[in-house]
């Protein structure tokens, strides 16, 4: 006891009590503020660090200086597209698609967007065409739609949506963690735009108080902080993917399995695939044109290549899909380009859709040519 009568002696009980109260207050405050503040939008990218050229995705963060996040706010706020106001002289094109568009095993310069930007294309009225890579390594049209809905906020003039059959089956629509983490946003998207639902989306109740606390949110929060820190290494090196010198090549010899997912020959029906997602995308985009591209695939010449094109696709399923794709395009008057066999087999890397830099460049050249012609036909 001190002379002025105040108890200045250390008390463990008081320390523990104060710590607990402070801890509880922090959690209550965070739980209160988190729905009001989109934490993912707080970013060091595009200010302290350079904006990323593609959406964050990383298998080994310590080597790729990248991180797989399921927070769409954080993903977009780190992207270069969120960094600057669109200049009047810019014709903005966003590329949406799977890992082939994102550029798996490709440096940023060698992705489709990378090459297309290197070509320095202009529109007939002299605007500079800038391509933004919004591909993401998940094969699901619903994931593409979610990204498309976010991309619209960045005033694209054109959307190029690269698709392949593996993104169409019903069972692929909700499987990825990115979609699972954003089911509520997807539901709201479907409801607010009165889209025809293509899959049963489970109802996700709003987060309760406990789920919003610091304790419950510690992993996503830690990921967000780590992701910001990786911005330094990304800016310093330009590396956002660990590309090994060697990797197992795409499968050349194939099994004699004729099934595609749960589907069996002879025919693939419209109802088996999620074409309605493309329709929803068109609806969402409104007046912004979308070009659908059936992306190149590896065509095997190995064992059982008479019944299968590659690891993913039996021939009957893929041929039917292409027919359905062209029928839909005609029926809805969509702009569709089918370049499924554009790329020679040796220009594929570890899967039937991932391309070498040469394969990617050939695709980009073809798209650049077609796009120049297409732009001339636009009012």
């Amino acid at each position: 006891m001190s002379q002025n009568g105040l108890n200045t002696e250390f008390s463990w009980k008081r320390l523990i009590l104060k710590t607990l109260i402070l801890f509880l207050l922090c959690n209550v405050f965070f739980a209160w503020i988190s729905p009001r503040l989109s934490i993912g939008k707080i970013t060091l990218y595009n200010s302290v660090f350079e904006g990323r050229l593609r959406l964050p995705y990383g298998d080994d963060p310590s080597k790729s200086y990248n991180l797989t996040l399921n927070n769409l706010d954080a993903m977009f706020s780190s992207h270069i597209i969120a960094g600057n106001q669109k200049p009047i002289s810019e014709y903005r094109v966003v590329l949406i698609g799977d890992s082939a568009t994102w550029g798996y095993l490709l440096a940023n310069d060698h992705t489709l967007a990378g090459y297309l930007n290197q070509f320095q294309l202009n529109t007939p009225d002299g605007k500079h065409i800038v391509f933004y890579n919004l591909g993401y390594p998940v094969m699901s049209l619903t994931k593409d739609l979610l990204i498309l809905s976010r991309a619209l906020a960045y005033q694209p003039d054109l959307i190029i949506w690269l698709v392949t059959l593996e993104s169409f089956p019903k069972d692929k629509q909700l499987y990825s963690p990115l979609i699972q983490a954003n089911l509520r946003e997807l539901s709201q998207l479907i409801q607010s735009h009165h889209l025809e639902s293509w899959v049963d989306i489970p109802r996700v109740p709003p987060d309760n108080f406990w789920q919003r606390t610091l304790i419950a949110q510690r992993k996503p929060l830690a990921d967000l902080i780590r992701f910001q820190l990786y911005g330094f290494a990304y800016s310093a090196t330009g590396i956002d993917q660990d590309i090994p010198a060697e990797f197992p090549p795409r499968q050349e010899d194939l099994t004699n399995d004729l099934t595609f997912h749960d589907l069996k020959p002879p025919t693939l029906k419209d109802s088996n695939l999620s074409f309605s997602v493309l329709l929803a995308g068109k609806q969402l985009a409104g007046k912004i044109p979308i070009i659908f591209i059936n992306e190149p695939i590896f065509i095997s010449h190995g064992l059982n290549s008479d019944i299968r094109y590659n690891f993913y696709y039996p021939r009957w399923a893929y041929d039917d899909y292409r027919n359905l794709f062209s029928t839909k395009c005609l029926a809805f008057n969509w702009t569709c380009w089918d370049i499924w066999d554009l790329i020679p087999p040796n220009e594929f890397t570890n899967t039937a859709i991932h391309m070498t830099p040469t394969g990617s460049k050939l695709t980009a050249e073809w798209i650049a040519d077609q796009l120049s012609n297409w732009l001339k036909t636009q009012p």
Partner: protein
Amino acid sequence: MNITQVITLVIVAWLLGFLRRYQPWKSLLIFTSMSLYYWLQPSSPIRYVDFWLPTFVVILAWLTYAGMSSFRLATLRKNIGELGLVLLPTLAASLNRYLAICCITPTLPPSIDRVLIFLILAIFIITFITRVLPQKWHFPFIILILLIIFIFLKNPYLTLQLSKSWREFNHQPIQYSLPIDIQWLGISYIILRMAHILIDVRAKRQPLPDFQTYFLYLIFFPALIAGPIDLFPHFQKEVNAAPQTPPLRLEGFKRIILGAFKKFVLADSLAILALSQQNATQITAPLYLWLSLIFYSWRIYFDFSGYTDIAIGSALLIGIRLPENFSAPYFKTNLIQFWNSWHITLANWFRAYFFYPFVRKFQRNQSLPPWLLILIGQGITMILIGLWHGISLNYFLWGLWHGIGLFINNRWKEWAGSHAFPFLENRLTQFASWLITFTYVSLGWVWFLITDFGSARIVFNHLFGIGL
């Protein structure tokens, strides 16, 4: 150490602090330290390695103790009971083969009969040495053994050879051998502690301790992984002292919280930004490279001093005060001050057992001019400190870098001291001194971090905008 291990150590230390007033406390501390040693020892793909390595510490301790007592059977006999006590945790850990309780040993230990045969054989060999080795050879023989162990464990090539031989002995495939298969937890510190007592007892600066306290000094669990390297007389005094009133628990917890914050928040976050073996040649822009180097400097400081804070804090919970290892090293204005405040106990060890005896020997002979004596003495001391971290070219160069820096600092200090320069005391000069010291130390970390000379050279070039 991960956070779970830290929390476990803290809880154990806290409980031991409460038990201090009870009589078998020291034995309990040994039992706990040794059990934690088995628990913390990294697992190895080579069968039983993670059990045998901590067990060898007991044998080495007995060997060095026998050496200190000049292999006098009477002394050994007097302490054999204490050896038995020390071996209890080993036998208890080996029982885990039959109990298979999680985490007591990293992998399944060998059978207890094998452990017993090994221990009896080892004690027999040590006793045999007593009979055959002339007394004057005892000290060099033990020092040589410690040196050989150290060299084999600190040189990646030799560790790989050891790993291969061990695998061959176990009939395991040798093509998967890696140096990392043999990681002997805390052995660098244990060897320095052994050498310190051996030298001091031989020089009669220190009486022969009892085996129990000696062994506890070697493996005291808070200081097992990252030091600090306490001096035995101080440690003995702390261990044998009556429990402090009031207890040091509050101070201990404060240090542990500070250490955990340094290690798990600051150091681990800085690790993402810091220069690394991987990004060293990927970053080419000088500004980013300098920043990442500065981040590395702070990362290594927070990492190491964080561990030290946890060690000192845990020891305080037990009621033992360990020496400080850091004293704001990055705020020092010259390299001499830096080395008086960075890894203090290691630097003191090498000063006490190499630098001062070396300088004294040559000063007596007057065979070398003072400046050359300092150059050679400081150069070799710093190279030895470098090689203590690992026997490879990069650590040699790191040591040499600091040896040269200390020599230049020493010469400057002497020259400036003989001239009265008022500007040396002004703030700008002090700031410049700090900047030069911090930059020099940071550049030194390039040698420390990057194992191949070619990459280190590229980093130096890029830092100064050469060859971009």
